[in-house]
C-alpha cells in the first residue's frame, strides 16, 4: 500500500460517499465523476494505461454527461427536504453487510482461486489490440452489431412518424396551466426567491 494508492483510494471513497449522501442531485453526480476519475487513477497506478484512459473517456466524458443530462431533463430542480437516509437504513446496511460477508467468504474459500498471486502480465496497448483483433474478434464484432442495432432502434423510436401530427403522436403535451418546465432553472428556486425577501 503505497502513498499514492492511499491518497487515490481515500479520494475515491470520499467522493463515492459524497455521491451517496449529498442532497443536491447534480452535486451527487459531480461527486460521482470524481469517483470515476479516482478509479481511473487507480487503474493508472496499476500500470493499466489503456483501461485507465478508457475509464476517463467513457465514464467521465460520456456516462457522467449522460447522468447529468438525465437529471436536468427529468427532475425538477428542487432539492428534496426529506432525510438522506431512508427510514429502514439500518436493515439495509445489515442486509448488504451480510451479503458482502457471505460473498467474501465464498470467494476467499473457493478452490478455483489460484493460491499464489502471479506477477502482473506486461500488457501494452499493442497486446490489447492484437487480442481484440485475433482471439476476441468475434465477441468484438457481436458487441459492435448489438450496439449498432441498439442505436438504430433508438433512432427509430426518436423518429417522428410521417403523417401524424405532433399532438397525436403524443410527443408534445402542452399544459397551459402548468408552470414552465424547470429545465432552465435546475437548482432550487427557493434560494432565488428567498434571497430577495
Amino acid at each position: 500500500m503505497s502513498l499514492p494508492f492511499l491518497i487515490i483510494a481515500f479520494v475515491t471513497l470520499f467522493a463515492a460517499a459524497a455521491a451517496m449522501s449529498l442532497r443536491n442531485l447534480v452535486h451527487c453526480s459531480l461527486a460521482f465523476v470524481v469517483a470515476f476519475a479516482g478509479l481511473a487513477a487507480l487503474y493508472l497506478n496499476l500500470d493499466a494505461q489503456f483501461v485507465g484512459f478508457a475509464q476517463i473517456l467513457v465514464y467521465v466524458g460520456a456516462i457522467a454527461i449522460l447522468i447529468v443530462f438525465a437529471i436536468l431533463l427529468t427532475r425538477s430542480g428542487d432539492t428534496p427536504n426529506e432525510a438522506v437516509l431512508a427510514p429502514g437504513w439500518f436493515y439495509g446496511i445489515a442486509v448488504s453487510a451480510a451479503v458482502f460477508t457471505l460473498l467474501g467468504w465464498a470467494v476467499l474459500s473457493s478452490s478455483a482461486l489460484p493460491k499464489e498471486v502471479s506477477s502482473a502480465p506486461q500488457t501494452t496497448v499493442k497486446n490489447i489490440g492484437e487480442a481484440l483483433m485475433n482471439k476476441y474478434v468475434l465477441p468484438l464484432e457481436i458487441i459492435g452489431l448489438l450496439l449498432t442495432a441498439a442505436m438504430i432502434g433508438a433512432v427509430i423510436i426518436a423518429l417522428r412518424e410521417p403523417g401524424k401530427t405532433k399532438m397525436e403522436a403524443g410527443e408534445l403535451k402542452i399544459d397551459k396551466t402548468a408552470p414552465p418546465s424547470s429545465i432552465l432553472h435546475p437548482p432550487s428556486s427557493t434560494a432565488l426567491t428567498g434571497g430577495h425577501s
Partner: protein
Amino acid sequence: MFEKLDQIFVTLKHLVLGYVPEALQPLVSAVLSVTLILSVFPGIFAIVTIFERKGIGRIQNRYGPNRVGIPFTNIRLCGFGQFIPDGIKSLTKEDIVPRAADRVVHFLAPIVMLIPVLLAYAVLPFGRNMTVADFDAGLLFFFAVGGAVEISVFMAGWSSRNKYSLLGAMRAIAQMVSYEIPLILSAVTVVMIVGSLKLVDIVAAQNHYTFGIAHWYVFTPWGFVGCILFFIASLAESNRSPFDLPEAESEIIAGYFTEYSGFKFALFFLGEYLGMFAIIGLGITLFLGGWTSPVSFLTWIPSYVWFVTKMIAIVFVFIWIRATLPRLRMDQLMNLAWKLMLPLALINIVVAGIWHFMGPDWQRWLVCAAIIFGAYLVLGRGLMRHQKLGKRTYRYAE
C-alpha cells in the same frame, strides 16, 4: 551546431537534473517540463489574442489594436503590448458571483476546465525528444482528458443559475459530444496506418523524405480528408466560429461563462485558447508531421520551431475562418456532424484500409482519391438538397 540548438532544452534539463539528488530527479524533471509548458503556451496565447484582433481587423479593413507597446515608453510595437493591460485588467476586476449561484461549483468550474486542457499537453511531442509523458496510449490519453472538459462546461453553466449559462452549456456539450466522433474517427486512420497510439511513433512514421518532400499524412488522399475533418471538428471542439453557438453573444450573451468575471473569466478564456492550441498540436502531430520539416533541406531548423510555426499557421487559418463564416444554426451544426462528417470519416477509415492493403503502387492514389471524391460529392449533395428557404416551422410553438 544546429543539432545542439535543436536539443537545447533537453540538454539544459539534463544539466539541471545533474545537480539534483537521485531521489528528487523525477519530480524536478516533471516540474521543469511543466514550467516550460506553462510559460510558453500562455505566452503564445497572449500573442495570438493580438494576432486575432489585428487579423480580423485587417480583414474588416480596420487597423485593430495598434497603440499599446512597451509600458512607460512611447514604443508601440504595432500594438503587441496590448495583452499586458488586458491581463492586468482581468486580474484587477471585481470577481462577481451571482447571489443565487452554487458557490463551490461556480468556483471550481474554471479550474476543472484548465486542468484537463493542460494535461493534454503532456503527450504532445513538441520537438525531437521533447515529450513530457510518452504514453503508449498517448492518443487515447489526449481524447480522454479532452472529454473531461465537458464536465467543466456543464459545471459553469449549471452553477451560474442563469438561463443563458445553462443554454450555452447545453449547446456546448451537445456540440462537443457530436464533434468528438468525427474527431476521433479521423484520427483513427492515422493509428491504423502507423499501428501505434504513441504520438512519438506517429511523428517518427512521417519523418521520411521522398524527392525532398516529407511523408506527411496530409499528402495522401485519406490523410488529406482526415486532416480537414479533424480541423473542422477541432474548430467545433474549441467552440470557435463558425461553431461558436455555445457562446453566441447575439443570442445567449456569452454562453456558459456569462456569469463569470475578472480572473475566472480570464481562466475560461485561457482554457479555451489552450484547448485550441492543444488540439491543433494534436492535428499537426497526426497529419502535418509534428515537429518535422516539410522539405528535407530545411531539417536544420530546430524541431520545436517547426512545431510552433505550424501551430501558429493553423491558428491563422482558424482566425481567417472566424472572420469569414457566419455562425451555423443548431440544425445545420448537427447536420454537418452527423450527415457529412461522420459518414465521410467512416468512409475514410475504409479508404485508409484500402490504402494499407494495396501496397506502394501508384494505383492506390487513384482508387483512394476516387472513392473519397465520389463520397464527398454524394454526401455534399445530400446535405445541400434540403437547403431551400421556406416557411419556418417551430417545433414547440404551434
